[in-house]
């Protein structure tokens, strides 16, 4: 049986340096991050500035419009202040997920530490900007209006826990989807080789998992984009809370 977890192994390519006793290694994960960033830069910078856009320039413009519309619809036009952050997150997650679909590549977001780092970045941005812009009024976020004073402490506690649980659900969602999708794909693909080794009857039987693998690849392509979009839209919703708390 082919090991379905093996694709998530992190290998050290070379060492960059040390901080204290901790080795800072350049891993295959970092290599793929670098590749996604390079691809995004190539798409956004290298595709020209013509008035009548070519194909690649259209992709760049569509992705800009898409993210800008997402921000405007969920955080208002004030949210456009955060456009660089949101656009970077969307493009990074989307492109790295797309790269992960290609066979023999590594999926960055199948490691929870990567998605958790992104989610925490959003979380602290919301916290710091919320306090910077609204001061103590930011605490209104935890106090829903129109609640009887008797149960208010309980509701506030629940709201605070709900707020603190955001980075967890934010990161686990992307991570779990990518991990589960890639494991399913690998398991079905390994059925093909296992059945194929059984001779002619196995060959006939292998058609079914092969077809499923093709279908699952298409589904994964959809999931890769969709999860990047969900990550982005949640980021916008959280940023909206920082801009307008307690509305």
């Amino acid at each position: 049986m082919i090991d379905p977890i093996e694709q998530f192994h992190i290998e050290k390519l070379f060492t960059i340096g040390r901080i204290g006793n901790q080795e800072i290694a350049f891993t295959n994960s970092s290599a793929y991050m670098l590749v996604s960033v390079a691809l995004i830069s190539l798409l956004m910078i290298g595709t020209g500035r013509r008035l009548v856009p070519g194909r690649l320039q259209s992709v760049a413009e569509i992705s800009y419009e898409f993210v800008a519309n997402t921000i405007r619809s969920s955080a208002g036009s004030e949210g456009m202040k955060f456009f660089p952050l949101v656009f970077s997150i969307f493009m990074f997650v989307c492109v790295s997920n797309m790269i992960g679909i290609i066979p023999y590549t590594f999926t960055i977001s199948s490691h929870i530490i990567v998605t958790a780092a992104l989610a925490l970045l959003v979380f602290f941005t919301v916290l710091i900007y919320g306090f910077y812009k609204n001061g103590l009024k930011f605490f209104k976020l935890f106090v829903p209006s129109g609640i009887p004073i008797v149960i208010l402490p309980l509701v506030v506690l629940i709201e605070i826990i709900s707020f603190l649980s955001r980075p967890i659900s934010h990161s686990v969602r992307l991570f779990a989807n990518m991990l589960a999708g890639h494991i399913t794909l690998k398991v079905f693909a390994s059925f093909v080789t296992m059945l194929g080794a059984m001779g002619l009857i196995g060959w006939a039987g292998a058609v079914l998992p092969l077809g499923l693998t093709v279908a699952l690849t298409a589904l994964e392509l959809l999931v890769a984009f969709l999860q990047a979009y969900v990550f982005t839209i949640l980021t916008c919703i959280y940023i909206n809370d920082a801009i307008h708390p307690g509305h």
Partner: protein
Amino acid sequence: MARGFRLSSELVAGVVVGALIGWGFDRLLSTSPFGLIVFFLLGFAAGVLNVIRSAGVAPDRTGR
């Protein structure tokens, strides 16, 4: 599958954060096990609240 992950991660996140807060509370104030019990239940409530909100059944915030 995506929807299932979405809702379950919301619920689990609430419970985990509640339990962690309770555990830390107990460690700091040595009130074990009451902090864990209370915050675990509160975390469960927060998780259910998260699920209801992300499923779009209830409005995002009361009064909005």
